[in-house]
């Protein structure tokens, strides 16, 4: 009798218990197929073409594995098979001859997307974009700090590049470190002169402009000729009159802080932050920066999981994914002035800063 009760108790326990186990997933990893078709559509010029022979690259954001590159067929399609289930950064680029109103010209096209699979057979179309309007661009961002063991990162600088065929003028422009959105400004520094109308500070076509946190020769004075950079050759220097310990090189013109109550120099995050160059017609920073006044915006972050803070109209990605602090590396556009409004595509991590020139 007792034995029977125990047997019933055990059997009931096992039955109830077995229902608690997690379900085994249906799919096996390693059999993901991605079928990608690349197209370029531009309704302004009535263009809708498949991009054949376009290089398509898959970079795995999760696992350490080599990048995969293949070329599209005549239908603009390429198939990647037996991949691990993972998040992929998919990019494609191709230069095509297009008539955009001025006769046939070679036009570089770029496409990118972050892909997360939800089924084993994934099919989608990747739409390419043409280049953004040429103009003044934030071309290089050196903020990570040189290799050192005393947390030195004060040799930060930013480089502008004029990718247009016209001379542009820096007069009255503002350079901002942004907060958690475009409506939040952390620092706002302004070039001297009148916005839009000023003609005092020109940048020639193809010209570089170096904006240093402090125009100082860090390489020789701090690091004895090794590492770091010589910023005494900078074109501009950020200065905050409310920063009593701030450095001010008398040989270099200043970009002045205009935010009341801000007492620091222009120091930004080593591997994550957002920068805006705007024409300076909106200096009321309490409600952020008007998007119409923005000339260029770059958001950078070493983390692939960082949430986007700037609006996608200004920058759809992040520069510097994977960059390490105190690595001596810098972020620079892959070609001078190259801009698709997606910093993930536009910028590359370069091993050392290039002050005033393109890598």
């Amino acid at each position, binding site marked *: 009798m*007792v*034995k029977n009760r*125990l047997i019933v*108790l*055990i059997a009931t*326990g*096992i039955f109830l*218990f*077995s229902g*608690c*186990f*997690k379900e*085994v*997933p*249906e*799919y*096996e*990893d*390693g*059999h993901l197929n991605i079928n990608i078709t690349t197209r370029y559509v531009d309704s302004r010029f009535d263009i809708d073409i498949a991009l054949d022979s376009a290089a398509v690259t898959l970079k795995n954001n*999760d*696992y*350490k*594995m080599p990048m995969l590159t293949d070329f599209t067929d005549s239908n603009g399609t390429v198939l990647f098979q*037996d991949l*691990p*289930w*993972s998040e992929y950064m998919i990019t494609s680029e191709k230069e095509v001859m297009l008539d955009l109103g001025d006769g046939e010209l070679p036009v570089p096209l770029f496409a990118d997307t972050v892909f997360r*699979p939800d089924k084993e057979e994934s099919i989608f179309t990747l739409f390419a974009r043409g280049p953004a309007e040429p103009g003044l661009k934030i071309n290089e961002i050196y903020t990570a700090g040189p*290799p*050192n*063991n005393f947390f030195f990162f004060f040799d930060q600088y930013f480089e502008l590049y004029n990718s247009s065929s016209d001379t542009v003028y820096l007069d009255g422009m503002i350079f901002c470190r942004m907060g958690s959105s475009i409506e939040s400004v952390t620092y706002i520094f302004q070039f001297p002169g009148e916005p839009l109308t000023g003609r005092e500070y020109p940048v020639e076509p193809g010209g570089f402009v170096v904006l240093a946190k402090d125009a100082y020769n860090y390489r020789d004075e701090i690091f004895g000729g090794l590492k770091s950079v010589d910023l005494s050759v900078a074109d501009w220097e950020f200065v905050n009159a409310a920063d009593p310990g701030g450095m001010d090189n008398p040989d270099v013109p200043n970009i002045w802080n205009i935010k009341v109550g801000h007492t620091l120099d222009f120091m930004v995050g080593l591997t994550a932050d957002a920068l805006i160059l705007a024409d300076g017609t909106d200096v009321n920073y309490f409600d952020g920066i008007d998007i119409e006044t923005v000339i260029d915006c770059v958001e950078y972050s*070493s*983390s*692939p*999981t960082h949430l986007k803070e700037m609006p996608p109209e200004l920058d759809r990605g992040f520069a510097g994914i*994977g960059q*390490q*602090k*105190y*690595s001596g590396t810098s972020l620079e556009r892959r070609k001078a002035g190259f801009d698709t409004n997606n910093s993930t595509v536009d910028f590359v991590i370069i091993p050392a800063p290039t002050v005033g020139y393109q890598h």
Partner: protein
Amino acid sequence: MRKVLLFSILIVLIHGSLSFGYEDYLYKNYSIKEMYRVYNLLNNPALMRSNNHEDLMKYNFYFGNQENGYRRTFDPEQIESAGVDIFFYKALDDKSALSSRIIYETSRLNNLYRSLEKDFYNSYFAYTDTTTGDVSYAGPILNVIYYREIMSGFSTGLEIDYGIERGLKDVYTKCETVSRNININWGLAYTGSKGTSLGASIRYFDRQGTYEAVKEITDAIVNTYMGFHMYYPEQPRSTNEKKILGKGVEIDAQFSKNNVFISALKIDLMGGYGSKENRIDAGSSSNPVRRGYWVREGGFVNSILSLGKNPQRLGIVMMAGTKQYHDWAAPQNYDVKNIENDISDVNYGIKMTIPLWANNLTLGYEAGTEAVNYREYTADFVFNETLSRNRVFSDLDIRINQVTDMYCGVWVSNFEPWFYWNTRLIQAQGIEMGLERLFVFGKLGASLQMEFWKPEDKTGVIERFGIAISYQK
């Protein structure tokens, strides 16, 4: 006597030289050579009394050293360990008993290549950094068992096991690990007047582990392996953290009967079924994300047949058992399995003990096969093999005089290891010796154990050495 000496030796073997982290395994491995305590075999605290213990208090001090002249990639070059083990057993009255055990162990893994795990090969989501360093571990394990006879023939028992261990790597990333386990085992048993026992027990175990790698000049660069061939490079940060949250349940049933068919034949049957699940989070300490989880499900059946009025003196013991389990792991947030592992293990053995004057000689043989079907889908890797193992052993209990006993044992074994050993066969030999003497203040004992593992087609030997000193009153 023999039981006590083996007790000392096994402490060195299990806690010392092997230096596994404290973890509740889903079910134990059974070996006919080491089966010496009925409670350990049956795993039901309601059957603790069947050990027929006298009240005792026992202290063990042990030291172990392992030199890995041959090693897997993520094994340390050397493992040093030392500890103290205090065991206490007391019959509270005719119907209840209490035992408790406190172990404090410290171990050091020297020249450990990259692994931030105590045993890299025991985890599907192992954590690594980029340096070779020495890692020190220390921590206590507390075990309490309470047994009570609730009515004639019926007994219940509760076992609580709690362990915590802390580890620290001496070089960048100076990873600090903290591992905490709790294990609650509750059982019921019925013991009939004719030597029949029937029992059931349920065990719940819970584990938490934290790994914290920090920057030194440069950010902490760590990787989380998924299996043994693919890894997820974690974002370099000032602090990188991994957390393990594990829990599991095991249900066991036991049956034991004396005098089966003939008066000297005893049979023990035990079986169990269980599942455990581990969730792994990794990333920054403020915002860790799920990196994956893995699940083990399975069961075991084991049987022991003992022939002899007193099998420890004269008799034959036979054992046969099997365990089958299925592991699977899934990455991050995708509903796919990236690892599967089916294991079917069969173990059998026989040993015979004969008296030689006042001494006992035991000769035994055990063997088994482990059918492994390990698949890493992400890396397209398959290991599908049936691995065999064999061991012959001989133990001699020598009664030197009325107050002094001695024990000697030798064994020779070979086994086919898993793929990550990078060799086809490992041959191993071991020697164990123990001496115990009764004094007016109690019993003093010392034991020694040595093992040598040699891969068949490779140079280098793994040498294990352990000593223990015990005092019992």
